[in-house]
């Protein structure tokens, strides 16, 4: 695929033109330059702003796409799944319980290997109804073959959307892709960004050409026929597994090419800051990493050897890269907004992924979990507290693994 890429036009990176966009608008603008054909919308906060922006762009003739207003999230994901099977580039998204409602359609999209791209504005699950931010909605779909990338900034959310199409539609992958924005913190916060131009997007993103379209032009293709498990049960699952593994190299390639076209460089899987000589690490994802990085910087100024590790992808999970950057650390803390009730030691979903990865090392750091659940917004002092607790854990073995730092009352 990389052989098809044209050389970078030097003018493209000379004069960046800033736009002040919130996360929702930034994603919509990326969808526009990606020349998406079919979009399916159903409202739920906080992701809805993306669809609002797209609808007004299309109403104003900024680009041609069909916006199908679905009757539910389940229909929404079924619409794009099948549009993708015909050969259309598609866009979809949701939040919170909307994703839960669409669960069946979301799962079959991945297991059918259809490269739909979806945006998630993370939101706490019901009950009770809650506009706050949690990660449990996204992490429900950790296990079914969707690629999941997590943005820290509005700029990154914009760029990630284009890279998502490139990776998802690559013939070595052909898997759907979620681009995750922390609800409110990214979806609703406007910052200046440099948009990807239409020309850059066209060069970076080759047209979507599925190998077997559901279209009479390609002959009688039968897809997702019912099978007896003994026939191709494990083999079909293996195909999806191999695709997620292959996605790793494709992601690295795609971000490298993206930098060539736009001049914006990102480490593909893990953004490690101050980790070269670190004794301590704060690990997390998403928008709050900006605050966490400030905490680490302040502590560095006081002489504490602390760094931050930000995962840009949860699927495929970059375990090897994580082990490389965490090597030599004495104690680390996971900062997360997702939980699994009744889990081992009461720890969160991201903790499990990290702890599993660390099991493979001989020098495991002390690993604590800091949980921010129920949507109450954390403050910088909470992250500061987390940093202090991991430093202390080296001297005094902690009583427990997980701490709810925004909880009022006793953290039992």
């Amino acid at each position, binding site marked *: 695929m990389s052989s098809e890429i044209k050389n970078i036009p030097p003018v493209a990176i000379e004069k960046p033109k800033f736009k002040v966009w919130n996360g929702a608008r930034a994603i919509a603008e990326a969808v526009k330059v990606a020349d998406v054909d*079919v979009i399916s919308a159903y409202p739920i906060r906080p992701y809805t702003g993306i669809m609002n922006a797209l609808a007004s762009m299309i109403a104003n003739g900024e680009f041609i796409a069909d916006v199908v207003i679905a009757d539910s999230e389940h229909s*929404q994901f*079924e619409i794009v799944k*099948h549009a993708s*099977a*015909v*050969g259309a580039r598609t866009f979809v998204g949701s939040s919170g319980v909307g994703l839960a409602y669409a669960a*069946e359609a979301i799962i079959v999209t991945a297991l059918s290997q259809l490269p739909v791209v979806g945006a998630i504005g993370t939101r706490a699950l019901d009950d009770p109804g809650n506009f706050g931010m949690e990660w449990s909605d996204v992490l429900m779909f950790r296990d079914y073959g969707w690629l999941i990338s997590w943005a820290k900034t509005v700029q990154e959310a914009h760029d990630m959307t284009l890279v998502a199409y490139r990776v998802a539609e690559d013939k070595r992958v052909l898997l759907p892709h979620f681009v995750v924005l922390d609800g409110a913190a990214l979806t609703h916060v406007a910052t200046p960004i440099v948009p990807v131009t239409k020309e850059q997007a066209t060069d970076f993103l080759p047209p979507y050409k599925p190998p077997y379209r559901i279209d009479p032009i390609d002959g*009688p293709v*039968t897809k997702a026929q019912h099978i007896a498990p003994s026939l191709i049960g494990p083999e079909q699952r293996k195909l999806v597994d191999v695709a997620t593994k292959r996605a790793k190299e494709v992601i690295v390639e795609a971000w490298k090419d993206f930098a060539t076209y736009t001049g914006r460089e990102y480490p593909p899987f893990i953004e490690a800051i101050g980790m070269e000589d670190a004794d301590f690490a704060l690990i997390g994802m998403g928008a709050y990493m900006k605050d966490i990085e400030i905490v680490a910087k302040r502590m560095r100024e006081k002489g504490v050897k602390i760094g931050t590790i930000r995962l840009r992808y949860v699927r495929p999970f970059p375990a090897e890269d994580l082990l490389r950057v965490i090597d030599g650390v004495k104690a680390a803390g996971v900062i997360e907004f997702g939980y699994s009730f009744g889990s081992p030691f009461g720890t969160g979903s991201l903790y499990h992924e990290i702890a599993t990865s660390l099991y493979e090392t001989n020098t495991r750091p002390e690993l604590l979990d800091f949980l921010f659940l129920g949507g109450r917004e954390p403050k910088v002092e909470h992250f500061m507290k987390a940093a202090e607790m991991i430093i202390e854990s080296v001297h005094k073995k902690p009583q427990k693994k997980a701490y709810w730092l925004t909880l009022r009352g006793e953290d039992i």
Partner: protein
Amino acid sequence: MIMQSEFKSLREIPPIDYYTAGRRTCAGCGPAIGYRLISKAAGPNTIFIGPTGCMYVANAHQFLTSPYSVPWHHTQLGGGGAAAIGIASALRTLMLKGKRKPEDINVIVMGGDGAMADIGLSGLSMGLSYDYQRLLYIVYDNEGYMNTGVQASSTTPWGATTTFTPSGKVKPLGNTRYKKNVALIAASHPNVKYVATATLWPPLDLMNKVVRALNSGGPSVIHALFPCPKGWFTSPADTVMLSKLAVETGMWVLWELIEGQFKLNYRPNPRKHVREYLSLQGRFRHLKDEDIDKMDKMIEEEWFYWNESAKQEKLILPY
């Protein structure tokens, strides 16, 4: 592509099949006969969507074969309405943007009563609110969830036994709910161009309704009664005869609504007593004479409205 015109006689039916061998449907399967006739009528430029149901599970499973010689894609049990919209939207947009050669392509959902009248009703309704052309929803109604072991759906007739509505000592009747009329629900959508009911008999009625639906210029629905030997406890040899008896007893009404204009396709005269239809079916064996008479009376009352609708060429709700 030339649009398929209506078939005037059985001789005009093309010998080619688009729903062929490589399936394991029951002997005398009504939906399988229906699939064959529908796909013949639709022709080669057709995409079929198969929501989960007996026509999904029974059309492959043990074999890595496909009975479809046109493109076919599975969708989830409740996904029929949406999947067809996704396909129709993709085709239209790709053609509009010059990414695909412009062409007439039929999109047909073969959804069972469970997939269309129950779990997928909302999606079907959404589909009917759009204006995509050559989009046809077939509700193939065998009056229950047959491949999961004959459970009641909302189109199971009053008095039928299913594994969810068995006839017992305390509840002797079986199913106490009345059959939902999906065609009437479909007819209440302002954008729907064509709504019809059909069954396996007469075959040309079914096939020509498919042709009319696809040529109607908008989304369309055919609610088709397809007998199920497994779930109705009938002889495989009786499938087509049961279709005929359903029409002749007035139990199943053949009508169509073309851009709002109602047309009754068959008026049983004299109407046979519903006993003739029910007595061939094991699922009604427990019914007492008074139950059967009650059912016949309900049909009689309903027919007043069908006749009135036919007179006025306008649909009147029969309930």
